[in-house]
């Protein structure tokens, strides 16, 4: 019964009904309500509506929406706010209008150059074809350095597209871009469903495999999208309740609804920073609860983006899938932030594993896991916030990234050991009892909750304070 409700999007009768005119109208109305509830931008709402009306023009429509997103991002960067007015020269004024159109053209030209280079991959010099990602990322850092020159500030937008372009170059190096055009790639470079640094939905290869080809698969994809958006509503409610009941923060209305009662557990980042003190047991509670809080936030964020993608007809995997039920560290890693993990696996794990045939299995696994979970993890974050590198600020770099390096190191070690254990346990399959399962889940929670001490966002909190807090959990 519960499964029947939770898997409503798979019911054949419902999928069939969603393909009728009345069904599509209801689907559109529900989708609109949910998109509005999640405060999704107007372009996304417009895109869903138009793609529902003209599904055959999906990529063209989404490419136009991508141009709209570029304008949107640039208006924020250039501090242009036209309010409800249209983006005309008269409404904006001559100079802002010229700046906006010039910048939009420049960004589009930048994307056009990158995509054209990838689509003519076989004509590139041999050394670039051999190491396409190293070549691309080297060019990216040169572009970031150039962004300091007057008139080149727009190049700071490059890291935002870095991983989407990485997917494109990888696809090109494998000869999988044949027959594709500029518009096939533009729509996911600055995607209307979420311009995040992590490429939710990956690149064209993955999106194409999950793209709806007929009305049945489109209806099924949209129902699956609605399910995710509904789940995001539920998790938002749970998150609000948790904020009120556990932390004594959150919406006032909700607080009044529970009579102002709260456990008043301090937030982890405040404990780590030393802004609040608490008994050992409460500190442990805060450590575990912060993992739940972070998981809820990530799930809500990811469900809205993936839900949107599904509404547009790309029935891709969700970003977060029940990580708190994972029974191993490596399983949690796969379920917690799927598209980030996929990025690390694709660009760091596979290449290292495939190139290290000289080593034994354990060593290869070690090298590949460290390349992904440690080096790749660090590189991803540094690229997203490259200021200290570009300013050659070593002290600032250590202060900003030191704690994360400990987190990434512990994460990589945990994943490596977990993978070795997983391989060993596959050699002796068998059913596991519920207490054993619960013990495993508790172990996974403890690992991820504790390493968050070095990852929780606590500005101005260095390694010393974080280690101090860690030791205080054991009364030291």
């Amino acid at each position: 019964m519960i499964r029947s409700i939770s898997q409503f999007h798979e019911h054949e009768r419902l999928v069939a009904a969603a393909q009728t005119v009345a069904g599509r109208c209801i689907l559109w109305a529900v989708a609109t309500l949910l998109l509005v509830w999640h405060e999704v931008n107007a372009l996304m709402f417009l895109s869903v509506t138009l793609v529902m009306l003209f599904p055959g023009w999906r990529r063209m429509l989404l490419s136009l929406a991508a141009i709209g997103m570029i304008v949107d991002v640039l208006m924020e960067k250039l501090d242009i706010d036209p309010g409800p007015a249209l983006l005309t020269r008269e409404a904006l004024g001559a100079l802002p209008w010229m700046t906006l159109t010039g910048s939009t053209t420049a960004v589009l030209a930048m994307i056009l150059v990158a995509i054209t280079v990838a689509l003519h991959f076989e004509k590139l010099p041999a050394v670039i074809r051999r190491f396409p990602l190293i070549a691309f990322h080297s060019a990216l850092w040169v572009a970031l350095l150039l962004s300091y020159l007057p008139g080149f500030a727009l190049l700071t937008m490059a890291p935002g597209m870095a991983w989407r372009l990485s997917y494109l170059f990888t696809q090109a190096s494998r000869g999988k871009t044949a027959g594709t055009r500029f518009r096939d790639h533009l729509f996911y470079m600055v995607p209307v469903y979420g311009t995040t640094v992590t490429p939710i939905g990956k690149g064209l290869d993955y999106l194409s495999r999950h793209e709806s080809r007929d009305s049945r698969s489109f209806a099924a994809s949209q129902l699956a999208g609605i399910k995710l958006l509904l789940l995001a509503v539920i998790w938002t409610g749970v998150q609000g309740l948790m904020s009120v009941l556990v932390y004594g923060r959150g919406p006032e209305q909700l607080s009044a609804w529970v009579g102002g009662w709260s456990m008043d557990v301090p937030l982890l980042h405040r404990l780590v920073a030393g802004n609040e003190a608490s008994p050992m047991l409460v500190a442990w509670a805060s450590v575990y609860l912060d993992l739940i809080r972070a998981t809820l936030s990530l799930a809500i964020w990811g469900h809205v983006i993936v839900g949107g993608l599904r509404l547009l007809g790309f029935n891709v995997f969700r970003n977060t899938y029940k990580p708190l039920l994972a029974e191993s560290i490596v399983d949690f890693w796969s379920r917690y932030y799927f598209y980030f993990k996929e990025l690390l696996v694709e660009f760091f794990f596979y290449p290292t594993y495939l190139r290290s045939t000289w080593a034994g299995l354990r060593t290869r696994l070690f090298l590949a896991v460290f390349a992904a979970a440690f080096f790749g993890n660090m590189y991803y974050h540094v690229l997203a916030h490259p200021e200290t590198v570009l300013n050659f600020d070593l002290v600032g770099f250590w202060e900003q990234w030191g704690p994360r390096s400990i987190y990434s190191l512990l994460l990589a070690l945990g994943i490596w050991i977990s993978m070795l254990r997983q391989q060993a346990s596959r050699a002796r399959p068998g059913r596991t009892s519920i207490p054993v399962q619960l013990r495993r889940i508790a172990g996974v929670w403890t690992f991820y909750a504790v390493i968050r001490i070095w990852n929780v966002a606590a500005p101005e909190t260095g390694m010393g304070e974080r280690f101090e807090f860690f030791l205080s959990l054991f009364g030291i």
Partner: protein
Amino acid sequence: MNQMHEREREREDLLAFLDTIARPGIEPSSFSDDTNLIDEGAIDSLALIQIISYLEQKHGLDLQARGVDPNDLGSVSGIMGAIERARR
């Protein structure tokens, strides 16, 4: 005739191996040979390294040298194709 028999035996070996790395409760043999098992959630992308090791150890296949895309090893037909290409 012998080649077909050999291919069928390799396919059965492969399915038996995939059963050992698939998520609990999911049988790779219940999908068609062209189905991408990663897309279906039957195996995780990290489990691909087990397939790579299987191909290296059982068939002496060097994926790096042959420029094989690991993502193409997500289906039975993709893996069988890689084995056949390695033989040529």
